[in-house]
């Protein structure tokens, strides 16, 4: 086809358009609407008096300017509290079960005459990595995902978007970014894919670049663990789990504020433009299907995330074991790298081991805490007791962690660079190397900046 023919057709169309009345387009749309109204009027009737609209009554409260946001924060807090309070015991049980098994299996290997490095690599490296990931991540996910899916199924998410719309609009972003942000709580890669619901390319890019600022499910266990160990004990034990949950909510709210702030800056600098209007339908509340929730949250989400973590944890466990057991001079390789990273780590209130853990955990954020525990424990002996108290003793007494370390680690975890899957997804969705690099380095830079400021003024 030559484009000359095409433009001839276009010219003819333009000429014919001139023969039509000026409001042709409006008339087409209007006739569709009129036709729809006519047909619907004939086909659907209200019988009796219109039913008392329960949905609308609920919506007046949960989307009200006064109660909307507090109710949202409260719901979020309840979800996290249930997760914090419910996950501790099963996590500890799983961990002691796994480590008992590790010891037994290692003993069997030793008795069979396997070389120490085979036993170490397989059981204290690969297996221990898997065990940490499963015991730290599985219980919170089993609680958090069904609760989140239930809110989604109920129809609450569009109300969240409705409540946050005015904030996003003021930041120059699209109101639907509230929805994509909510998806990011599950998984940032999924959140970035969901930005396809945003029509304008500018606003979609803003949503993609800022999605990382809400903690995904891979990062929640880190936040929950730190809040439980460091913030919980600051208050009487009766309210410790509330304080821990409140801390996690606080971190999430910081994430939302950063999302809005970065969107605001982007919309006024490199991605200039106005927020576009859109219609958001508030769907009726529907009774969630229990089986469907369990299926979605356990198969699609929990096992999906866990499997990914397992796939990255096994090689990470192997790498950590090698780093901890290959010695150069008097010190292990892990120690050398950690020492080299120490000055940078201390400048931002962390230490070299934490940064090393982040580097090893680039493929998946889920394994940050297990990784750093394994690096700390790498050269020492594993104690039988793997309770939270033991973890705390290890971090505080042996490695000098303070409340600042915990706070900055939570901030760093919230803000730092997206995991490999998210980076790849960002590239697939934008098809731009430039924006992928921006989307990776912007959060990383911000994480260093914020933690540096906090460490300086602490």
């Amino acid at each position, binding site marked *: 086809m030559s484009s000359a023919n095409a433009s001839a*057709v276009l010219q003819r169309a333009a000429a014919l358009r001139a023969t039509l009345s000026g409001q*042709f387009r409006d008339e087409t749309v209007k006739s569709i609407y009129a036709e729809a109204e006519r047909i619907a009027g004939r086909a659907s009737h209200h019988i009796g008096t219109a039913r008392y609209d329960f949905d609308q009554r609920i919506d007046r409260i949960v989307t009200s300017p006064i109660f909307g946001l507090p109710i949202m924060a409260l719901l979020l807090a309840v979800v996290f509290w249930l997760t914090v309070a419910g996950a501790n015991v099963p996590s500890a049980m799983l961990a002691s079960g796994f480590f008992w098994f590790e010891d037994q299996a290692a003993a069997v290997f030793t008795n069979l005459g396997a070389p120490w490095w085979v036993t170490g690599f397989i059981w204290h490296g690969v297996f221990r990595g898997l065990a940490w990931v499963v015991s730290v991540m599985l219980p919170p996910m089993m609680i958090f995902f069904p609760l989140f899916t239930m809110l989604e199924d109920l129809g609450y998410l569009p109300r969240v978007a409705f409540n946050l719309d005015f904030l996003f609009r003021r930041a120059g972003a699209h109101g639907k970014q509230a929805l994509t942000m909510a998806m990011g709580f599950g998984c940032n890669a999924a959140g970035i894919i969901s930005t396809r619901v945003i029509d304008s390319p500018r606003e979609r890019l803003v949503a993609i670049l800022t999605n990382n600022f809400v903690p995904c499910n891979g990062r929640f266990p880190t936040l929950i663990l730190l809040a439980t160990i460091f913030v919980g004990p600051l208050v009487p034990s009766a309210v410790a789990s509330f304080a821990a949950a409140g801390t996690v909510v606080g971190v999430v709210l910081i994430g939302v504020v950063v999302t809005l702030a970065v969107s605001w800056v982007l919309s006024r600098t490199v991605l200039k433009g106005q927020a576009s209007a859109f219609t958001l339908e508030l769907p009726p509340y529907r009774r969630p299907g229990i089986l469907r929730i369990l299926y979605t949250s356990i198969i699609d989400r929990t096992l999906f995330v866990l499997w990914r973590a397992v796939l990255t944890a096994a090689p990470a466990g192997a790498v950590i074991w090698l780093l901890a057991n290959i010695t150069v001079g008097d010190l292990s390789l892990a120690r050398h790298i950690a020492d080299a990273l120490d000055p940078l780590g201390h400048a931002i209130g962390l230490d070299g081991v934490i940064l090393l853990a982040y580097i090893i955990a680039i493929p998946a954020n889920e394994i940050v805490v297990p990784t750093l525990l394994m690096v700390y424990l790498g050269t020492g002996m594993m104690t039988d007791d793997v309770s939270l108290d033991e973890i705390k003793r290890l971090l505080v007494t042996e490695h000098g962690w303070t409340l600042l370390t915990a706070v900055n680690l939570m901030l760093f975890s919230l803000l730092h660079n997206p995991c490999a899957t998210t980076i790849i997804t960002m590239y697939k969705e934008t098809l731009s190397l430039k924006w992928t690099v921006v989307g990776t380095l912007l959060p990383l830079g911000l994480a260093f900046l914020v933690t540096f400021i906090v460490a300086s003024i602490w």
Partner: protein
Amino acid sequence: MSAHDCGSCSINAELARMGVSLDKVDRVVALAGNPNTGKSTLFNALTGLKQHTGNWPGKTVTRAEGAFAFDNVRYKLVDLPGTYSLLSASHDEEIARDFLLFGHPDATIVVVDATAIERNLNLVLQVLEITSRVVVAVNLMDEAKRKNIEVDVRSLSRDLGVPAVGITARTGDGIHGLLEAVAGVSSGAVHTAPLRIKGTPEFQRAISELVPLIESLAPGVPNARWIAIRLLDGDAEVEQALTSGRLVDLVASQQETAQRFSAKISLQGTQ
């Protein structure tokens, strides 16, 4: 004409869910509709797949595919993103529109929300402009009943000129009747007479002049009338598709579409 005078359908026809076994399908059925009307729920009910459903508009952002068999005919079902219209140029509307125009579905199920018929009909009318092989599935009949809304699907079917069937996708109510209608429309046994905008005499004259021009420009184009309307409307995107040759490419690739949409794509669409 209604869904039930399909003479060739067996009363005992059974639905067989076939998941992602997409090879050797006999017919292709598209699933369109407004956001949050239960398209994905119907998709799951028919294919046995577990496409993630969620109670918020815009859940399905990519095209998901699955298969089912009914009355010994194998169907491929393509779940399109939910859209309010096919007129603007957002990414998901483009996916839905391109598939309806060039994917050559043997039938298109438009899912409408029984509690909001009027708003949903806007999309139905736009789909009818593109393809005549349409079955309207009036979903959420249970919710309508709870809200004391009575929906007369026969009146709907008469006015639209295509079969309309009331269903409740979540419980499976009415699915059998829907599949009979789909079987009839996709085989050609049921003739539809879709309602289309007539417009002024000038409009009709303009259309009849443009259609042959478009057909000679892009031989084999499935719906020249729709493209003519869009050109008269000054739709910049359709104009661009014409001059850049994208339209011709899409028409040329329509033969391969069946192969192109692999099971892999359908799985990617599930997250």
